[in-house]
């Protein structure tokens, strides 16, 4: 998997890990990549892709939208970007609250990534759109809405899949004309 990274990536990743690189080294590395194809041999620098935990740590500091974009970079980043621990960091950064038991409850309800996608993300967008009036989103409110959504998706005894609609009020398109 590591060998499939596009040519420009190591330079970018190395730059973030080590600060700015000298231009000669950059050109040299790029040239090498072109010559040697998918060897993945790096003589200089440090590649972020070798250290998944560090990558997760970094991605966890992004905001939701950027994290979604980062997940489109390559398969490694997509896989790391899907980890619930990364989204947990993102959620806690944007919604205040939560204690020790939160993680297991959220995992049971569907995970932090889903929580962000369904509740926190749209809520932040909605608050950014309107005045907000200094209200900061609380995790407990998001979790309440999330639990309602999870409940709606539960089937009855006949196990029919329900369409959950209780969060549609968050996702309605805002007229941007």
């Amino acid at each position, binding site marked *: 998997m590591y060998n499939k990274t596009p040519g420009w990536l190591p330079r970018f990743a190395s730059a973030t890990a080590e600060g700015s690189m000298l231009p000669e080294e950059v050109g040299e590395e790029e040239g090498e990549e072109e010559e040697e194809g998918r060897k993945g041999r790096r003589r200089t620098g440090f590649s972020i892709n070798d250290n998944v935990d560090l990558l997760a740590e970094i991605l966890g500091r992004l905001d939701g939208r950027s994290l979604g974009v980062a997940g489109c970079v390559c398969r490694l980043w997509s896989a790391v970007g899907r980890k619930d621990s990364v989204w947990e960091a993102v959620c806690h950064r944007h919604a205040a609250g939560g204690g020790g038991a939160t993680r297991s*409850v959220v995992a*049971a309800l569907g995970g932090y990534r889903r929580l962000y996608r369904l509740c926190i993300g749209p809520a932040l967008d909605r608050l950014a759109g309107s005045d907000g009036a200094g209200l900061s989103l609380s995790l407990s409110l998001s979790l*309440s809405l999330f639990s309602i959504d999870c*409940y709606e998706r*539960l089937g009855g005894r006949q196990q029919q899949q329900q369409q959950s609609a209780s969060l*549609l*009020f968050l996702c309605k398109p*805002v007229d941007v004309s």
Partner: protein
Amino acid sequence: MKRGHQDILHGGGGWYAVAPEMERGKRKTTMGAAEEGGDVDELLAALGYKVRSSEMADVAHKLEQLEMAMVSSAATNDDALLSHLASDTVHYNPSDLITWVDNILSELNAPPPPLPTPQSLPSADAYDLEPLPALPAPATPLVLGSDPQSEVAPSPRDRKRMKVCSSPPSSSTTTDAATSAAAALPVVVVDSQEAGIRLVHALLAGAEAVQQDNLKAADALVKQISLLATSQGGAMRKVAGYFAEALARRIYRPQPRGGVGCCSFDSVAFDDMLHMHFYESCPFLKFAHFTANQAILEAFAGCRRVHVVDFGMRQGMQWPALLQALALRPGGPPSFRLTGIGPPQPDNSDALQEVGWKLAQLAESIRVDFRYRGFVAASLADLEPYMLLDQDADGGGGGKDEEPEVVAVNSVFELHRLLARPGALEKVLGTVRAVRPRIVTVVEQEANHNGGTFQERFTEALHYYSTMFDSLEGGAAAAGADDGGPDQALSEMYLGRQICNVVACEGAERTERHETLAQWRGRMDRAGFEPVPIGSNAFKQASMLLALFAGGDGYRVEEKDGCLTLGWHTRPLIATSAWRVAAPAEDPLSALAAR
């Protein structure tokens, strides 16, 4: 101008002098258009024409005829009429608009095209503006619905005041007059804004007519209301439509048939479906659930065994959030028991058990110890305390060592139904007391739809539901017009059924007996409960919830003596309150019996 209002009403017929017209006209432009005078139409008066408001429709009708005559004569290249009009009309005083038009028409000697004369108008004339003494809310004009034309100043008014209004079928343009003669409706709407005021007057007049048992006039007014309603847009049209339908039902079905409500679909499943759409499309139910849950959560602090009794279980949408909050509270979740009460299902499906099963699934996934019991009861008054108290299947041997369970009773829009039968509410509150709850959460509509005469009830309901429909409209508009769609329509239907019940039903059938927070306070006090203030956490959470709604700008969360109300702009619409059993100064049961 307010001084003039009552005078004008009782002044009878009589023309006003021309001199004060201009002055009144000037005041008119600064006043805002909602305040219409009595006999003489003030807006026309500002232009120098004297027309009685009661004859406005008549005048418009005749002007239309005149127009058609002129157009048709021009079409036949007959210039005689036009030259005649040009030279001779100066003999008639056009300020007497109706006489002027009458004279011209009769002079034409041309039979007017066979427009159907409105039978509704002559009888309605007498009622058009007189029954206003019942008008409540003294000074403030009835602000009903968003009136898109309220900013229009008098200056852009045409001489020809037959404007095309928003809804095509109800009015005809001057150019179409000749072609659509057969299809022209009898009432030509002069101005959408005036029609709105006229509509409100007609609604109130209809209510008074019903109150006075004058069913013929009421019937005529209902027809007029329906016609006027088509000229309005948005919330006002829908509200007027529902009220007109309810009035019609009341007129045509005075004898209550046994057990039949005033809705075509009586099934509980349909009602539940409407309820769900109402839940999803606007914040009222969510607000109710969140604030009640917060109060219950705070009351359960530190308790290891808790029991919640829900008087209206339906789909159980309130409880996932409480389960989650209990799971995450400091100290870990308690042992949770839920008793859900619901109406009997006609098709023998066990909806209560389904809901219980889903909640149990959720509770298991978040590791909250959960027990559920469902009760089917046609009325809450059928409940007895022993049904709600803890009954261990084991026989209670092990139960005695454990902590006693703490009970919360939750009622969202359920208590007002009990007022339909005398004594039912007292019995239910007695049952609640017997269970010794730590907290009782009550959410009710903030309106008095249960007091006084039919007319008062009608007027109050008109205000209330207009505001409700406004809020639905506001929410849909803010979210993008195309999304209003099914959710909004079904929510309106849900409210429409309530309107039908408030207006058309009586006696035991009329279950929507809403009362204000102050009235409920009195009832709870008399039943031996004392208020528990709902804390600021609930207020903050409710405010945040409202901020998330697209149409959230119009909604207001307010705190009133420890209770929270949710309203649209300045009008509170629903109120959440919390209660506990008052410290008994005497034996509570005998005190209750003595009352």
